[in-house]
């Protein structure tokens, strides 16, 4: 319960920070959309229409109140510039975000399903054959993938798998009509990129969590009672490693979501990251706020889940004395 309320506070604080940073950015939606040649009165009129003339604090609480009622407001862009014609063509933020969010969740979901099992297997096997050539090369390669930035990894994949060996498309445009197979095919490269950038960290942390436990006395005891290598790792070490492993997975899933901002941009994928970048450019505050809120809550929820796994996997916390 305490964690949950702390999480809510985090999300709230985050929305305040986003809102106030926006107030410090030069220009607003009105100046951006009307261009430099706009007359002062036109800018003023548009501001009044969007409610941008009110003081920031009032605007923030108006917005907050609406969010609690499930109303994320309307996007500024796509709104009719003709007086009296508003409403019909203005776009609801929710309607704008949901399909994009689905796309992003698909992308990161596939990447996660690839990255998590792979890094667990690699991490555990590296711990099992510690200091072997396999271990050394796996940890070495993972260090390289962790240190290279997303866009670099993305371009390497484009170079290898789209240009030199044209297996996958460089542009991952999907729409409502795409079939599942098409989606997999088109998102292959962004999925690989996201997998690679997060896998290194997860694998290394799994490895060190297991190695840490392997040096404890109950592992020696297990060996002396005749447990095989496999049994030692899977039955004795792994159950005690879930807490640190789930933490690092949560952090990496969140990182994946944030990394998708760059990756979606590189592969021109219609996800929430691209939407957010575009909206920041336009100073489209309602959309940016909503996206930011989604990112923040995902982060908090993922961490809550990790904590929960930590508690469930630890009898000390589950069954008090």
């Amino acid at each position, binding site marked *: 319960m305490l964690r949950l309320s702390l999480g809510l506070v985090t999300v709230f604080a985050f929305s305040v920070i986003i809102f106030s940073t926006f107030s410090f950015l030069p220009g607003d939606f009105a100046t951006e959309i009307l261009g430099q040649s706009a007359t002062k009165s036109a800018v003023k009129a548009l501001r009044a229409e969007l409610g941008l003339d009110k003081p920031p604090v009032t605007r923030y609480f108006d917005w907050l109140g609406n969010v609690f009622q499930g109303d994320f407001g309307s996007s500024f862009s796509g709104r009719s510039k003709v007086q009296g014609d508003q409403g019909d063509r203005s776009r609801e933020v929710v309607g704008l975000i949901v399909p994009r969010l689905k796309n992003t969740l698909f992308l990161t979901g596939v990447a996660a399903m690839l990255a998590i099992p792979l890094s667990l297997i690699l991490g555990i096997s590296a711990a099992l054959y510690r200091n072997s050539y396999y271990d050394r090369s796996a940890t070495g390669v993972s260090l390289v993938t962790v240190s290279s930035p997303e866009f670099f990894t993305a371009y390497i994949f484009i170079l290898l798998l789209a240009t030199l060996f044209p297996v996958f498309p460089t542009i991952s445009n999907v729409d409502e009509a795409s079939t599942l197979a098409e989606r997999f095919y088109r998102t292959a490269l962004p999925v690989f990129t996201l997998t690679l950038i997060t896998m290194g960290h997860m694998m290394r942390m799994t490895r060190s969590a297991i190695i840490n436990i392997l040096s*404890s*006395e*109950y592992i*020696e*005891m*297990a*060996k*002396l*009672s*005749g*447990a*095989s290598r496999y049994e030692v790792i899977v*039955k*004795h070490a792994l*159950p*005690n490693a879930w807490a640190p492993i789930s933490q690092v997975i949560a952090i990496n899933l969140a990182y994946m979501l944030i990394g998708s901002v760059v990756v979606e941009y590189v592969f021109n994928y219609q996800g929430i990251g691209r939407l957010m970048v575009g909206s920041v450019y336009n100073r489209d505050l309602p959309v940016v706020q909503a996206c930011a809120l989604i990112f923040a809550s995902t982060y908090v929820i993922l961490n809550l889940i990790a904590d929960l796994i930590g508690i469930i*996997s*630890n*009898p*000390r916390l589950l*069954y008090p*004395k």
Partner: protein
Amino acid sequence: MTLNKSKELLLEMKNIHIDGFSDERWHKILKGVDLTLHRGEILGLIGESGAGKSTMGKAAMGYTQPGCKIIKGEINFNGIDLAKLTEFEKRKIWGTKISYVAQSAASSFNPAHRLMDQTISAANRLKINPTDVLKKDAVQLYESLQLPDAENIGDRYPHQVSGGQLQRIMTAMAMSPRPELIIFDEPTTALDVTTQVEVLSAMRSIVDKFNTAAIYITHDLAVVAQMADRIKVLRYGEEVEEAETRDMLSNPKEEYTKSLWSVRSLIKPEETNEDYMLSIKNIDAAYGSSKVLHNVSIDIPKGKTVAIVGESGSGKSTTARVITGLLPQLKGEIIFDGKKLSPKLEQRSKEELRRIQIIFQMPDTAMNPRQTVDEIIGRPIEFYQGIKGKKREAKVIELLKMIELDETFLDRLPSELSGGQKQRICIARALAANPDLIICDEVTSALDQIVQEGILKLLQKLQKELGVTYIFITHDIATVKAISDEIVVMYQGEVVEQGLKSKILNPPYPDYTELLLSSVPEMDPDWLTNLLNKRSS
């Protein structure tokens, strides 16, 4: 201990050499030790830390710790040379034919699994009996080990039972596959004397019951005397001597063996006076919401030594924390040299802080590993007495001489000192403040017998020379006899009694003191048997 044990050879280790890798080079841990064990026989392996007794015990299973390797030697178990087997072949013997009971039960059980599952895991691997038969058998083992609620205790997790119970459950776990040999590696060292007695008797009766052979490793001769038929003394990886238990106790051949119980021969004549250095009156103290001290009153006579004894959880160390101001009391007052001390550390004057010093149990963690001896001792001299430069150095050397070390130690780091030397440096650090009262919190319990003796003698000498007052916190009665004038017995946060050593250590006793004193193992192989007979009657 029955004498009609078979003479059939079970284990024969010949000329065992084991090397260990540490500090970037290989060291010899065992230098050609032999060992023989017959079926149903219990052999005691004894020695100080670093003697190689634990390595020898594990080698009896053909196992070496990571970083160690068997250089040469034969380990014939039932006619098979374990040293020549592969890991895979050895795993078939480990846990089922030979099982192991570790020193620290608390950290040797996997925290993620229930005790029952861990108890029968090795026997389960044999696939002879189905799981429910094994579980029933385990419950019977729990019962014969006198565990409370034997029926259900296996459903608990390791953190839900006490240390003494865990140690007995580990014995049940070792016994579950009915092995031919059990290695007990210091199984009672981490326990209180009162718990130790229960665990010892439980282990002995079950080993007797199934006529299992055992190697019992310990540094406490009195404990091994209760368990073993034969005793082998190791030192620096070599055998000192081996003899039947009774022969060894009555007639030890080597000087070294005699020195193993030297602390027990140290005795100080008691003295007291009516002039109190420190009086604590009606103290209550708590950690958070759990109250640990109830109405504790103790008087400490000037220039004398008061020992506070009791098992873990009795509030001895908490009392020390209250006196030093680390844990402010809820109620009651502390009178130091006629003046009232403020409960809070922050509100005490520098002079008050200087006059009360404390020495801790673990010298390893009580010193900054990156400071040299000169810095460690010099800092309190500078802080409390404002002495700097050449004079400070002279003072440090003077203190080093006082603790029977010399100026060659000035530039050493704690990692370059032995355990006993580290504790001496801690004593010098306390003396550097020129205190009137030193609280010694289990200062000798982490040390070997011989080193203990040296430290205790040093503390006595310093008291004679400087007239300093000691509060000596310990659970070891031999230490108490060696150093104290007065004794305070504590139990569950209360003072059971306080008085002169001769009064406390002689009858009539209050019930708890009786239990505590009678639980201290004595150098008599019949001690445990007699004690158990006495208690059951």
